[in-house]
Structures are given as C-alpha cells and as structure tokens.
C-alpha cells in the first residue's frame, strides 16, 4: 500500500526535478506578490506587521493555485492517467502519492521562503517561526483540497479559472486559521490553538480528499 504511494510520489518528484522552472516560477510568483504589498500600502512597520499574516497566506493560496491545473493534466494528456487508473491498487492511493509530491514541490518551498519574506514585514522571531509552522501544517490541506478541484476540472475549457472558482472558497478555513496563528502570535496570544486546528484540517483533508479526487478522476476518464 505504501509502495504505490511512494512509487507515484517518487515518479512525480523526478519529473518535477527535470522541470525545475515550474517550481521556481511558482516560488517567484509568491515572492513578487508578497513584495508588492509594502509598495502598495506604504512602509509603516506597524501596518505591515498587522497585514503580514493575511498577505503571506493569500499569496500562498494563489501560488498553490498556479501549479494545481497541471497536477493531473500532464498525465491525462499523455495517457499515463489511464494506466494509473488501471493499476491494481485503489486510485485514492495513487492520488495520495501525487498530492504528497505536489506538496513537496509547492507547499514546502513556500514554507521555507516565507520567513525571509516575513522579515520584510518586520515580524518578530516568534511570529516567523509560527508562520513557517503554519504554512508547513496548512499547505498539505491546500494540495489535498486542490486535487479535488484539479480532478473535477480535468480537460475542461478554461479549467484554470474554473479551478480557482471551485477551490478558493474551500480554502477559506485554512486561510483563517493559518493567518490567525501568526496574528495571534503577533498580538501575544499564542498560536497553538490555531496550529492544532490547522493540523486537524490537514489530517482530515489528506485522508479524505484523495478519495474524492479519485472519484472525480474516474468521472473524467469515462
């Protein structure tokens, strides 16, 4: 069972490594969007500190959205998806592998670069730590929920825009608790509660979302 998850994740990672430009451009998108905000709203540290959690999280959502349309589209176009659906294991496990690989190349880099961007917003060390932790904990849920949207819009006209329309409303709880964790730390309340809720949401969506996405893929393959 773990074999197949590892096999799929390993193959997707290998493919991503041969196409590093995709990872790098999503990351740069994140950096640029976040850096635009101080230019737009002014350099007052107090204001920036207040806005930082929201800005960083919204940018993280958008950066995740960028890579989602390709999650299944490449495999669909070259026929690999059919082979995956015909393999003698549950399709949900295959999707789990793909979601893990997606997180490793989209969510994880965001978490690693987020503290650097947080410094632009004059966040304290505590807040930077919580920010990294929140993005680490929350982004797997984004990949999981996003997989459902990517599977539902597979092969459709204007799939990318439609995907954002379907997925962004479902991202709201992650946004609220992710930004809330940093916010609470900035205002000295402690973000542990938020972080544990984020972790719970991530566990739930990693367990549930791949199966919903697998059902959507089967519909798309009919």
């Amino acid at each position, binding site marked *: 069972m773990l074999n197949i998850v590892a096999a799929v994740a390993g193959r997707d990672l290998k493919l991503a490594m041969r196409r590093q430009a995709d990872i790098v451009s999503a990351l740069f998108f994140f950096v640029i969007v976040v850096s635009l905000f101080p230019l737009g709203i002014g350099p007052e540290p107090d204001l920036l500190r207040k806005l930082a959690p929201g800005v960083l999280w919204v940018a993280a959502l958008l950066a995740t959205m960028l890579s989602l349309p390709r999650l299944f589209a490449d495999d669909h176009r070259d026929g690999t998806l059919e082979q995956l659906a015909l393999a003698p294991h549950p399709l949900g496990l295959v999707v789990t592998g793909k979601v893990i690989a997606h997180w490793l190349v989209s969510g994880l880099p965001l978490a690693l670069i987020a503290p650097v961007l947080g410094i632009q917003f004059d966040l304290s060390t505590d807040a930077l730590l919580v920010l990294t932790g929140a993005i680490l904990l929350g982004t797997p849920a984004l990949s999981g929920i996003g997989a*459902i949207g990517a599977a*539902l*819009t597979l092969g*459709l*006209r*204007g*799939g990318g825009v*439609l995907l954002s*329309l*379907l997925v*962004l*409303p*479902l991202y*709201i*709880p992650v946004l*609220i*608790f992710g930004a*809330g964790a940093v916010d609470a730390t900035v205002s000295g309340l402690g973000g542990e509660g938020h972080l544990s809720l984020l972790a719970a*949401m991530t566990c739930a969506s990693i367990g*549930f979302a791949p199966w*919903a996405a697998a*059902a*959507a893929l089967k*519909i*798309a393959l*009919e």
Partner: protein
Amino acid sequence: MTDRFNLYRFASPATFYPLAGTLIPYFAAIAAVFGIAGLYVGMLVAPTDFQQGEGYRIIFIHVPASWLSMFIYLVMAGWAAIGLAFNTRLSGMMAQALAPTGALMAFLSLWTGALWGKPMWGTWWVWDARLTSELILLFLYIGYMALTAAIDDARRADKAGGLLLLVGVVNVPIIYFSVKWWNTLHQGSSVNLTKSSMAETMLWGMLLMAMCFWMYSIAVALMRVRTIMLERERHTDWVKAILAGGEQ
C-alpha cells in the same frame, strides 16, 4: 415492492415531466396564498420592534431567503448523493434546476442583509459570520453552476457537479464555524444580532413567508427541470411526441 416500483417510475423523466407540469400551478398558487398571508401579517398586522423600529420588517424576507439558500443547497446535495449512488437520470437534472434558484436566494439574503445592516449597524456590509458564510455559499453555488456549464456531456456534468456538491456540503459547516470563530476573535461582540424576544405575530409572518419562498422555489425548479428534460431527452420518443403534439 410496489412502493419501490412506483418510486422508480416517478424517477423516470417520461413520467415525471407531465407530473411536474400538473404540479407547478398548485405550488405557484400555494406560494401566492402564503405570500399574501405572510405579507399581510408581516407588513400590516405585526407591531413595530422596540429596538429596531420598522426596519426589522426586512426580516420577513431576509430570514426566509437565508433559510432557503441553505436548504436548497442541502436538497441539491441530497439529489447528488442519490444520483451518484443509484445513477438515476432525474437527480442530476433536479440539482441543476435548483441551483439558479438557490443562488438567487443567497443573493437576496445578502442584498436584504446589506439593506438591514445599513440602518441597524450603520454599514452596508459587516464581516459578520452569517453574512460571510452566506457570501461563501453564493460562491459555492456559482462554482457549481460554472462547473456543470463547462462540461458538455450531461451525464459527466451531473456526476462531477454532484461530487462537488457533496464536497461542498462537508465543507459548509467547517467554513461556517471557522468564520464564526474568526469573527468573534476579531470583532468581539460589538456586532451582534440582538435576539429580541420576538412577538408571536412576527414569528408567524416569518414562517408564512418562508413557506411562500419554499413553494415558490419548488414551482420554479419544476419549471426549469421540465426544460432541462426536454433538452436532454430530445432523442427519445416521449419528447418527440410532446414536441409533435404542439405543447407550448
């Protein structure tokens, strides 16, 4: 066994189409009766609210519209579950027929909420948990309609839309509680709908209006589902017979 047989029979578009046609005028008439009664009680009989003055009368459409917007989403998800489990053709058509009405109810809820908020809270929009959730619900409706519209094959549209509805229905409570929690954290209790002990006539007015909205939604959805049926089943004999028979 006969019950089961009948259920299946009504689930077939060929039997449901004429049945819906007969039912629509009744639902429309019931909606009108409830509407008149509700407006009479709500607008003419009910006394003013001691806190909110006459402005509270918006409640007679705001609350029914909000209820219906949530209720219709649940009903659509129910149809979706039936459709995915039993592969019935009617389910997807019903879900699609209900979606625009549900979206309109969500819109009305937001619109009346804004018009209520302005005199009461001094602002058109507050990030109140209820209003925010209602906005997200509207997004979910729009997402569903956009998805089903983007898929050319009707059966695939039904199944994909159904799956989205089920995912949405799981998420709605999560979204509601996270927004609520976020809201209390940020706003404190400054904005709170005061739960004034509602006069009995007011409650009656609200219930009557809710019944009116409910019956109205059924009537419109049935109208819409009949068109969808004709379109989807245009190659079947029963539709050809109807078209040849010159029905308006």
